[in-house]
C-alpha cells in the first residue's frame, strides 16, 4: 500500500509534487489509487450541495491530502466582498478539510458583473492597500491564512508605480497572507513584459512562499513578436524547469503542484511531470548535502 493512504491528515503537505485534480480524472483516481502525494482542486468546482463532483472529491479526500484553489473570489475588485461566494468557500473548506487554501492576486468583477477571468491589477499603492485589506477580511472570515497566487498577464496598466514582485511582496506584508508562487506565470509575465524572471524571485522574501505551481503555456503572434499565453495545455518547458531549480535554491522545499487544464492528457502524463519535479528537487538536495 502506498503511503499516501496513511497520510490523509495533519501536518504540512508532503514534499513530493502534487497534481491538479480535474473532473475527467476523478474515476481514474478512484479506481486506480495512483501514487500521488496530494491533490489540488478548484474550490468553485465543488460548491454544489451534492452531485457527482462533490461525491468524487469526498472519496478522493478520504485517501489523499488536499489543497483548495479558488478562482472566483475576485479579491482585487472594488465591489464589496461577495458574502455568498465566501460562504460557499467556508462550506467547502469545512466539508473537505484542505491543508492549504489559495486564491489569485487579481480581480474579475465590478458592479456585480463578472468577467470570470483573472484580470491583473494596476501595481499602485491604492490597489495594494485595497487588496491587502480584502485578503485580511477573508482570512478573518475563514479563520486561517490563505495563499495568494501571482497571475500571468498579457497587459500592464500605465498607472502602475511598482514592479509586480514589489506588489506581491507588499500584499503579503500588508495582509499576512502566504504566497503561492506560480513559476510558469512568472516566466510568462517576464517574457510578455520584458523583465528578468530571476529578479522577480529575488524580490520575493524567502519566508512567505508556501507553494509552487508548474504548468505549460502556448504562444501567439503579437505583431511579429511572441506573446506567451498561460493555457496550462502543454508540458512544463525547460526554461520554467530552470526557474524551478532557482526557486528551490531560494525558497527551499516548498510543496509543488503540476497543473494542466486545456487538452488534458491521460493521468500518467501528469504523474511523469510530478516525478520530474521530484527528481529535480532530490538532485538539488543531494548537491547541497
Amino acid at each position, binding site marked *: 500500500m502506498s503511503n499516501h493512504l496513511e497520510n490523509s491528515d495533519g501536518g504540512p503537505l508532503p514534499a513530493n509534487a502534487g497534481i491538479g485534480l480535474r473532473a475527467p480524472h476523478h474515476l481514474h483516481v478512484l479506481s486506480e489509487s495512483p501514487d500521488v502525494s496530494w491533490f489540488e482542486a478548484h474550490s*468553485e468546482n465543488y*460548491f*454544489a*450541495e*451534492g*452531485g*457527482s463532483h462533490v*461525491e468524487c472529491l469526498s472519496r478522493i479526500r478520504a485517501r489523499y491530502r488536499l489543497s483548495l484553489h479558488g*478562482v*472566483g*473570489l*475576485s479579491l482585487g*475588485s*472594488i465591489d464589496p466582498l*461577495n458574502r*455568498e*461566494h465566501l460562504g*460557499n468557500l467556508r462550506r467547502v473548506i469545512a466539508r473537505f478539510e484542505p491543508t492549504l487554501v489559495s486564491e489569485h492576486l487579481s*480581480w*474579475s*468583477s*465590478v*458592479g*456585480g*458583473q*463578472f*468577467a*470570470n*477571468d483573472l*484580470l491583473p*491589477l*494596476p501595481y*499602485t499603492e*491604492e*490597489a495594494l492597500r*485595497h487588496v491587502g485589506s480584502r485578503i485580511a477580511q477573508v482570512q478573518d472570515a475563514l479563520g486561517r491564512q490563505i495563499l495568494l497566487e501571482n497571475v500571468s498577464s*498579457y*497587459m*500592464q*496598466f*500605465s*498607472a*502602475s508605480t511598482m514592479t509586480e514582485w514589489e506588489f506581491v511582496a507588499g500584499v503579503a506584508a500588508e495582509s499576512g497572507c502566504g504566497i503561492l508562487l506560480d513559476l510558469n506565470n512568472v516566466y510568462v509575465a517576464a517574457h510578455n513584459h520584458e523583465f528578468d524572471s530571476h529578479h522577480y524571485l529575488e524580490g520575493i522574501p524567502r519566508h512567505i512562499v508556501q507553494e509552487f505551481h508548474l504548468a505549460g503555456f502556448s504562444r*501567439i503572434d*503579437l*505583431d511579429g513578436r511572441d*506573446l506567451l*499565453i498561460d493555457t496550462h495545455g502543454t508540458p512544463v518547458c525547460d526554461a520554467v524547469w530552470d526557474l524551478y531549480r532557482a526557486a528551490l535554491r531560494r525558497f527551499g522545499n516548498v510543496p509543488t503542484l503540476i497543473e494542466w487544464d486545456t487538452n488534458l492528457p491521460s493521468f500518467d502524463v501528469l504523474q511523469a511531470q510530478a516525478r520530474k519535479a521530484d527528481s529535480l528537487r532530490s538532485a538539488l538536495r543531494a548537491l547541497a548535502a
Partner: protein
Amino acid sequence: MPSLRELQVHVMDALLGAGLPRATALIAGSPTEAERRFGVYANTVQGNFRDALHSTYPAVRRLVGDDYFRQTAREFQRRHPSRSGDLVHCGQGFSDYLAQLHPDDGFTYLADVARLEWLIQESLLAAEHASLDLESLARVPPAAYDGLRFELHPALRLFESRYPALAIWEVNVGSDAEPPTLDLRSGADLIAIMRQRLQLQFHRLSAGEHCFLRAFEQGECFSAAVDCGGEADAAFAASAALQRFVAAGAVVAFTSTVKT
C-alpha cells in the same frame, strides 16, 4: 491617474463589448499593441462564458449549431453578464432569452429545451436526502393526514412543455450520430426530473400528479394538494400517487401540526 474603481469599470465595460478605447488608454504600449493585448482577455472572457453555457446547454447547442450558439452566447453575455464567481450560474435566464428571440417562429421549442437543461443542471447539483421515514408516517393518526405538509427531494424539479422537449433533449445529447427527426406535435411533457444518488431519472406524470407535486413544492398541505390533483384530472387517485412518489424517493419528509 485613474482610481482603481475607474480602471475596473472601464476594463469591465470593454470586456463586455462597450467603450474599448477607454480601456486600452489605460494599458501600457502603443494603442495598437494595447488593443491586441486587451484582446487576449476579451477572447478568454467570451470563451469561458461560452464554454460554461455549452456545458449547461449541450442539446441547445446541438440544435442550433456552433456558429449560431457562439453568436447567441456572445449577445446573451452582453445583455446578461455573469453575476457570480462560479460560472455554473451564468446560464440562468438563457431560456427566457431564447423565448424573447423566438417568440413565434419555428424555434419556440428551443426555450423549453433550454429550461429543461437548466432544471437538469439544478437537479444534478442538488443535495442528497435520505428517503421518507415510513415508520413515522405510519404513526400519524388518520385525522391528521389532511394537514400534513410533504417535502420533495432537493433534486426534484417539475417540468412542463407543450413540446416533446425530453425526447428532443435525449436525441441531442450523448451521441454524435445525426439525431432522428421528431414531430414537434408528437406530445407534450409533464415530467418530474429526479436524481437518485448520481443517477438522473425522468418520471412522466399525469396532469393530476403534476399538480399534486406542484402543490407540495409550493408548501401546500396534503388536502390542498389532493384538491389540486383532482381539479386537474378527474381520475386522479391521491393515495396511489403518494405511494408512487414515496417509492420513487421523490417525497422525502413531512411535517405535521399534530404531535405524533
